[in-house]
């Protein structure tokens, strides 16, 4: 058994007397039931043994006099992020991207595949950013300070997520090579270090920027972020405002202009770039040593930065704000042709130099460091620990898996990491009353355990309306989960039956092809008929159609009703044939034979002869079968009505037989 990575956090259940220290619990699919087991009783306490029996929540609400006790059952949920309203957009939009990614998997190959994966990654990020925007708006407009702080925390978590994702996109998905790597990292830093943006805006929008006190800070920011054009633009303002420094500005401007940077296209090889950079570096060195910038300390420090002097860069710590900014600036001015595999050394030293032992690394720093070291599994593991919700790690891992970057080392309980995270995330979705529909698609794309999880979860969705039941059923049918289909249809059919909606019940059992239930419903109908003497719900029975064949009893019901209809329309011979067929083909249940024979009476008593001799013999046989089946004891118990019925039948049959023999015997009749 492995050791837990972090201490499990302590959670206090409000409303429970924690001093009493008597709690029992039971696991559910996504939550836990907890209740107290110490009750006030007269003269003592009753302790219920906290034995966990799987699947059965135990309600231990106790009555008791004496000390009042809490008789509630508490539901403890693991995943509370799922219930944050503002995150719902994130879940839905990312679901769309996820499904699109899984579906497009097969089509592409090679370079276009990589471009496609980068695009998917960008889509995820834009979804995170959109969510951040909304959350920010919500935070701004929130009156309640607790709510405001909650939203603000969420915003910072989301922005950290986007930061990490962006870095992973650069290093893993796009797998930028030396050269473009630096460009991407610069973009990354520019996008995410935004503490300085206000200052920049302020200076740029002032009337006389060069006179602003923060002017040089802004120039430094531009230089540190490699935004040479903007730095030069500001320098020209300084040059025009301050003619004394004109020469210095021109020199600096020239240096900045000539600085060689990696290009995104393949226009120059790395060696060319290195050569050019070497020359440029030497030129900067010359100017510095000549004392060109001696009179202006700002420009001198800028030149030092251009030369990659780490101390000079470190002096601008407040403008850098983070160690990864320091790292990128360092790389820009010391090693612009850095290779991906070399990043780890620079990252480690940058962090040490920047933090300088004053502050310890925060979780975010650890995650970023792991990314720079190309330890993907470590990144995911650290993120899982730091974040409260599986959303981030599940989607990121899935994307990285599509990039074929995760070795399939199996976790000790069986499935691989991607699948494990997706399963956890989707299970969290299923605990939500509405987001369960998203979870279905996630389970679909977990090849090993997805189906089993789905089967277990989908049966537990509460079905309040028929429409919801239909949607759940459709999901089960599309995946050939016949067990679940049957179970859901049975639940709905029972509900309908209890509410006396026989037609609904029948339509549910037809959907499930549940013959047993159809038999139950037909028996109900027949019972109603026997009690009331007429059929209820004729619109249903008259229009059964091919579904009649679902169960024998149902067929009988349909045919029996047809018999009544034929009789009503005075099509006696057809009615007679049908009646006989019902008995001889054993479609009718034995209990009903008496009723059928009694129905035959009026036909036998008609003036014209309906039953032929053969048919009359058949009827007699049926009657005899019926009476012979009864034991002697039953015959004694039969009341007068029963015996009279049998007598009348025998008489009618005999009379009919007599007439029909005569009729068939004569010349016209045969």
């Amino acid at each position: 058994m492995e050791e837990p990575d972090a201490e499990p956090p302590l959670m206090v259940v409000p409303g429970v007397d924690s001093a009493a220290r008597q709690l029992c619990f039971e696991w559910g699919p996504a939550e836990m039931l907890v209740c107290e087991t110490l009750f006030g009783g007269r003269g003592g306490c009753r302790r219920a043994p906290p034995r966990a029996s799987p699947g059965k929540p135990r309600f231990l609400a106790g009555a008791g006099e004496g000390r009042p006790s809490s008789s509630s059952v508490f539901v403890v949920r693991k995943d509370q992020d799922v219930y944050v309203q503002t995150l719902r957009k994130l879940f839905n939009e990312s679901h769309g991207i996820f499904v699109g990614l899984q579906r497009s998997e097969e089509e592409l190959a090679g370079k276009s595949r990589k471009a496609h994966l980068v695009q998917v990654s960008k889509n995820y990020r834009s979804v995170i950013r959109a969510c951040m925007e909304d959350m920010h708006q919500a935070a701004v407009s929130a009156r309640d300070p607790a709510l405001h702080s909650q939203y603000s925390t969420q915003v910072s978590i989301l922005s950290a997520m986007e930061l990490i994702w962006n870095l992973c996109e650069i290093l893993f998905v796009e797998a930028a090579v030396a050269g473009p790597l630096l460009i991407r990292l610069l973009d990354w830093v520019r996008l995410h270090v935004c503490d300085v943006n206000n200052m920049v805006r302020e200076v740029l929008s002032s009337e006389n920027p060069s006179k602003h006190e923060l002017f040089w800070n802004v120039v430094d920011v531009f230089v540190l972020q490699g935004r040479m054009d903007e730095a030069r633009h500001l320098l020209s303002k300084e040059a025009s405002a301050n003619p004394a420094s004109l020469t210095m500005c021109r020199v600096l401007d020239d240096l900045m202009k000539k600085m060689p940077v990696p290009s995104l296209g393949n226009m120059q090889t790395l060696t060319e770039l290195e050569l050019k950079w070497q020359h440029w570096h030497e030129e900067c060195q010359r100017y510095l040593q000549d004392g060109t910038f001696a009179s202006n300390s700002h420009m001198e420090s800028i030149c030092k930065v251009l030369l990659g002097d780490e101390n000079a860069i470190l002096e601008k710590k407040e403008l850098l704000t983070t160690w990864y900014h320091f790292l990128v600036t360092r790389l820009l001015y010391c090693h612009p042709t850095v290779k991906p595999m070399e990043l780890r050394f620079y990252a480690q030293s940058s962090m040490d130099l920047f933090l300088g032992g004053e502050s310890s690394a925060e979780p975010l720093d650890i995650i970023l460091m792991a990314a720079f070291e190309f330890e993907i599994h470590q990144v995911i593991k650290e993120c899982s620990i730091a974040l409260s919700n599986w959303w981030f790690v599940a989607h990121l891992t899935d994307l990285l898996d599509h990039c074929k970057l995760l070795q399939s080392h199996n976790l000790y309980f069986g499935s691989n990491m991607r699948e494990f995270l997706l399963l956890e995330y989707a299970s969290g979705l299923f605990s939500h009353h509405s987001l369960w529909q998203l979870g279905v698609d996630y389970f679909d794309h977990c090849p090993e355990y997805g189906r089993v999880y789905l089967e277990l979860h989908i049966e537990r969705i509460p079905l309040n309306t028929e429409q919801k039941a239909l949607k759940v059923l459709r999901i089960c049918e599309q995946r050939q989960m016949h067990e679940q289909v049957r179970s859901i249809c049975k639940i709905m059919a029972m509900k309908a039956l209890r509410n006396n909606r026989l037609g609904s019940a029948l339509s549910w059992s037809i959907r499930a092809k549940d013959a047993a239930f159809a038999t139950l419903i037909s028996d109900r109908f027949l019972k109603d008929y026997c009690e009331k003497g007429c059929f209820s719900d004729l619109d249903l029975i008259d229009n059964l159609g091919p579904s009649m064949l679902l169960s024998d009893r149902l067929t009988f019901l349909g045919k029996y009703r047809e018999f009544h209809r034929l009789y009503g329309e005075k099509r006696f011979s057809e009615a007679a044939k049908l009646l006989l067929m019902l008995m001889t083909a054993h479609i009718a249940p034995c209990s009903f034979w008496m009723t059928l024979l009694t129905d035959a009476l009026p036909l036998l008593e008609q003036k014209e002869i309906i039953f032929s001799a053969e048919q009359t013999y058949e009827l007699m046989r049926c009657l005899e079968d019926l009476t012979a089946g009864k034991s002697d004891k039953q015959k004694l118990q039969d009341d007068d009505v029963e015996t009279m019925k049998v007598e009348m039948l025998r008489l009618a049959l005999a009379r009919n037989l007599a007439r029909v023999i005569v009729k068939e015997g004569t010349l016209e009749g045969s």
Partner: protein
Amino acid sequence: MEDVCAKFVSQKVSKARWRPPPAAALRPPDCFATGSWDNEDNRISIWSVGDLGSVGLNGEYQGEPQLLCDIRHNGDVMDMQTLSANQRWEKAHYHVDRGAACGGAACTGVICNNPEIVTVGEDGRINFFRADQKDAVRTIDNADSSTLHAVTFLRTTEILTVNSIGQLKIWDLRQQRNEPSQIFSLTGDRVPLHCVDRHPNQQHIVATGGQDGVLSIWDIRQGTMPVSLLNAHEAEMWEVHFHPSNPDHLFTCSEDGSLWHWDTSTSVSEKPSFLHQGGKSSTFFAHNTINQSVVSAWLSNDPTKDRMEITNLIPNQTLSVNSLDVLGPCLVYGTDAEAIYVNRHLFA
């Protein structure tokens, strides 16, 4: 499809309906309502889609629907219609005992013909209300032994209902007996029917959608079986709508996530286009033809003669499209992926 504007609304959308602009105004509708379902706290929201001329704060989102207001709704929103009314009718649908707390049944469909309102529900009951009266004007108990899924007006005195055993029933409101005046059934399997709509001009043409995604066209003047069955979707068809002013166009949406536009207007140029607003001229034309026998394209489905164009309006389908509404050149639809989509240039 650049004209389609999507918005994620953090609630699964069960119904979307345009608010009809006042009859005198000839502009397209700019306001619609949506209802949510499966939330602990369901809401009915009213949205406005701004004019295209106006540019909002972020220029690129100028077409996005803006929330005007919303109101809490008890239970899932199953159906919506526009009417001015000031009433609430509680417990209109219930199973056995009206007073029982858990005996309520879902009301699945509602239709209005100002000031009359008709509702149907899972309890097989049909209720008639008037906008100004507190109690139901009339109730037909046990009108159907199965669930009634949808209702629509056939004429002012007749309504059509569809139920979950594949039957289409016509009820004559002038008669006092509680029996349908006509019953139509599907051939073959009695698949539940989920939606029904009547042709705006030719009232004998009715379209229904079923649980197996089949679109059935019925001619209620003749026969008790559908005239044509068109295999459409792969899952339940939730809504079917004839375009109110261009009835050669039909729209269906389904659980399988697709929304289909059925177009029977043939491409022959001499046939005058019906594509202008106002239904009067098209019916006028229909009565005045001399040489052509105007059997509506919906009834005569000879594949060699009439070409029916069917387009799926959704490129990447994921979750179910629960509802759609079409009015003039504007289409709105809502999905289970918690998004609403508006297209204001349907026939461009």
